[in-house]
């Protein structure tokens, strides 16, 4: 049996199994580190940087950074919260995230992250307003990449779990987006039963299951009553303290 690794997150002692990332150890300890591209069940990709923490004073992505003995991790600080706010804001500005008319509203992780981080106003960045065509060719699935945040979760799910590689990145830099392995979705072997198509895989409203829109009434959606991350924080004591620090510096 391996000896557990001991380290600290915001002064709280945390135990990790060897090989675990900081994120995994934090999750097990009931400490929430915000994230978008990482999701349980898929290999971490380390691309959104919303999970940025400070390890002994240097920034690192908690989802890919291995836990190590005696490191001191900062997570819940105003400085990091402000970094995360900026990253999330940029995502809002790069796509068309019109929450009031989007069927993912209420279960959307981007929206929920915005709320949790206290982003409530339009910001300094310009809106890029992409006008990419919606791919509705498949009988059961729609792809609206105007809402894509390039988290790559569908890509990994399709490749590593479904064994299909329906999705992949195309383009570079600001033009990088998710494309499909064919002229359109109909030309791929995507299926409604794929893990890549499951509602939990796409964090936003980019991959849509046809005819599901707005079936869940307001009040019964994932984040209607509890903020994103609550499932990890569970009943951990100090919830009041948590609320307070998360709301710091809210604009």
């Amino acid at each position, binding site marked *: 049996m391996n000896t557990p690794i001991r380290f600290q997150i915001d002064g709280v002692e945390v135990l990790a199994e060897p090989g675990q990332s900081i994120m995994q150890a934090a999750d097990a300890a009931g400490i929430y580190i915000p994230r978008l591209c990482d999701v349980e069940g898929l290999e971490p990709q380390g691309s959104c940087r919303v999970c940025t923490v400070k390890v002994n004073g240097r920034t690192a992505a908690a989802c890919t950074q291995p836990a190590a003995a005696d490191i001191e991790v900062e997570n819940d600080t105003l400085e990091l919260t402000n970094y995360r706010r900026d990253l999330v804001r940029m995502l809002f500005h790069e796509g068309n995230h019109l929450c*009031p*008319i989007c*069927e993912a509203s209420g279960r959307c992780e981007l929206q929920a992250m915005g709320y949790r981080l206290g982003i409530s106003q339009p910001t300094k960045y310009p809106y890029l307003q992409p006008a990419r*065509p*919606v791919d*509705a*060719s498949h009988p059961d699935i*729609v792809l609206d990449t105007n809402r894509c945040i390039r988290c790559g979760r569908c890509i990994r799910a399709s490749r590593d779990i479904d064994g299909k590689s329906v999705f992949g990145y195309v383009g570079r830099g600001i033009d990088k987006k998710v494309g499909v392995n064919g002229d359109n979705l109909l030309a791929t072997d995507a299926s409604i039963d794929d893990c890549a198509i499951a509602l939990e895989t796409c964090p936003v409203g980019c991959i*849509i299951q*046809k*005819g599901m*829109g*707005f*079936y*869940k*009434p*307001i*009040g*019964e959606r994932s984040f209607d009553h509890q903020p994103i991350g609550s499932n990890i924080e569970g009943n951990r004591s100090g919830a009041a303290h948590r609320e307070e620090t998360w709301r710091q510096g809210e604009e």
Partner: protein
Amino acid sequence: MSKRVIEIDPVTRVEGHGKVTIHLNEQNQVDEARLHIVEFRGFERFIRGRLLWEVPVIVQRLCGICPVSHHLAAAKAMDIIVGADRLTPTAEKMRRLMHYGQVMQSHVLHFFHLCSPDLLFGFDADPSQRNIFGVINAFPDLARQAVMMRKFGQEVIRVTAGKKIHGTGAIPGGINKSLSLTERDALLKDIDQMLSWSQGALKIARDYSLDNLELVQHFATFPSSHMSLVREDGALDLYHGNLRAIDAAGNPIFDQLDYQGYHQQLVEEVRAWSYMKFPFIKSRGHLDGWYRVGPLSRMNTAGFIDTPEAGNAHRELKALTQGQPNPMTLANHWARMIEVMHCVEKIRDLLHDDDLQGKDLVVKGERREEGVGVIEAPRGTLIHHYKVDANDQVRFCNLIVSTTHNNEGMNRAVAAVAKQYISGEPRVTEGMLNHVEVAIRAYDPCLSCATHALGQMPLEIELVDASGQLIDRREQNRR
């Protein structure tokens, strides 16, 4: 006589803007008076390519004032497209509840907040008193009732649509929630109060009309055809039915017309001076084919009202014109309060119906490519027409909103009042111009909606003399 046409640049007017121009000749007689609404048809393009189930949620953004009407009209069109020809009782009744809540709160807002200052203080009363704050000061109980009634209506919307504005309740083929017992009981607790306040509001509107009969009979009164949905037995039905149009004498022009074929009877005409279309009834031609819609028109087309209190009030209103169609613009207020009474009676009946707690929420059938949804919105008939391709994407959209149907009627009302109150007057006062606004207000135009742009509903009046000189201009933001 020299005349000048005032040009309006539409680019600066895309927010939804109403403007009246009044042209005077050398004798200070009104030559011409028109209501201009700059219509911005961006929406019909924007919706193209979107997915059919998104439409009832997206269209609500057309208008911040009457979102529920658009939500339901679009959902009804999508019912046709997904082949849901008959909704489950729970779905239909939840939607009806939502709609009655919406009509009630919209009418209450309009009557108390927008119109009561004119009615309570007089059309040319001091403008510093003739506003909602004046009403609150002089009639605090009335103002409080209005607020509470509106709140009740919004609460009905919230528990049916999920939110007070821009909810998601109506989905293609049904509804996404039923009414919980807690939600029902919270509304039932207030329903008796709402019934008695509605009786009070109805009495105010009725008494106003009868006490000022001379004014009501002659202010912007003109014959016209009328159109609305009616139930199969001819009763008033705000949520569903077939189209009925009658002429000024009450003779049917068409009756029990399935609205899927509305375009066989209604044509939209474009006129050079307005960006808003003028719909008319094809068989009557473009000169005589115009008609009015809205509360008074519904009183005229409906054979009866199936709830007791509103039914009695309807009979009394009809008796005023010996059963003939009522042509008086100002009678809209009375009609509106009859509808508030009707809605509250309907809400009461629905709250006692346990179909609202049902579990069967959605039905589907054979897919169609095209669907029309029509509803009697607070301001009148609202038509949504869509074509959707095999991939579920919208390919075509046409909307005819209540305010557009009333375009010609409102123009006639403006012209009538301008001639009656401004012609020949050496000096034009604020009070005179307010008469023009009173006439427009009686139709409760939703300029925001008619222009298909979200936002304010500013109204601007320009008075132009014979030499083309602008002699007066007033502007106000109504909301």
